[in-house]
């Protein structure tokens, strides 16, 4: 059975709604450094860590490419496969910039995912606490933060 779990409670209601509306198979809500705030559909910590790290890296590469071209940033990124597609998009919130990775199958479409992603991003923006801007992640804290997130997400 697919599960949704969150590190920060304010992300839960918007995420559950988004997953239901878009029929997403997997979703990761993360910071640009790959820290996971919420997830849906992952059964193993190692898969979630890999997806978050790769998603954050893709967005970082895309942002660097945008800079080279004189763009402020690029918007959402979409890859279509035979059985799965991915939608990777930035989501600015008062709590700081976030990235959302959505994996979907043939039971839905990129059009639906994009449509409901817009609502999801707006809901996250509205739900985010305005008085707590996220501290930058320091290399020395990264592993401890990661372990704390994984413990919280997988209840281990």
């Amino acid at each position, binding site marked *: 059975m697919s599960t949704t779990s969150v590190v920060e409670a304010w992300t839960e209601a918007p995420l559950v709604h988004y997953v239901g509306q878009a029929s997403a198979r997997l979703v990761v809500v993360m910071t640009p450094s790959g820290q996971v705030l919420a997830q849906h559909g992952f059964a193993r910590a190692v898969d979630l860590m890999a997806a978050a790290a790769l998603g954050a890296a893709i967005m970082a590469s895309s942002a660097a490419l945008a800079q080279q071209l004189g763009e402020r940033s690029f918007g959402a990124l979409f890859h279509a496969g035979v059985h799965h597609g991915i939608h990777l998009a930035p989501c600015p919130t008062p709590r700081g910039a976030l990235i959302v990775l959505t994996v979907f199958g043939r039971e839905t*479409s990129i059009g639906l995912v994009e449509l409901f992603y817009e609502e999801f991003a707006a809901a996250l923006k509205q739900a985010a606490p305005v008085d707590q801007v996220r501290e930058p992640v320091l290399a020395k804290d990264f592993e401890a933060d990661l372990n704390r997130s994984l413990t919280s997400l997988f209840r281990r």
Partner: protein
Amino acid sequence: MSDGLQRALDRVSRVRGVRGSMWVAAEDGIMVAQLLMEGVRGKAVAALAASLARKVSGAAAATGAGRVRFVQMEAAGGTLLVAPAAQDLLIVALADSRVNVGLARLEMIRAAEAALV
């Protein structure tokens, strides 16, 4: 946008009561070309029309009814019309209650058959 696609949208949109028409990629639910009145949420209509067409096609296949040629969904505030076309496209029209569905259907099926030849 190809002239054929645009001409088809012109014809469909000229039918009385039609508030907009669009070509939609059936699998992706994304607009390929559109001619919409102001205030119509094209992106949402495209995504939901493609989803509806997929589900109706699934139901038709499951019941042995064969290929879907036209979908008409009437709601309190208007009507959504969808016709599958070649190259994995759908022609979609959004209309109000005054629409002559028969005429709109005819134009849409003509468009679906002719625009991509």
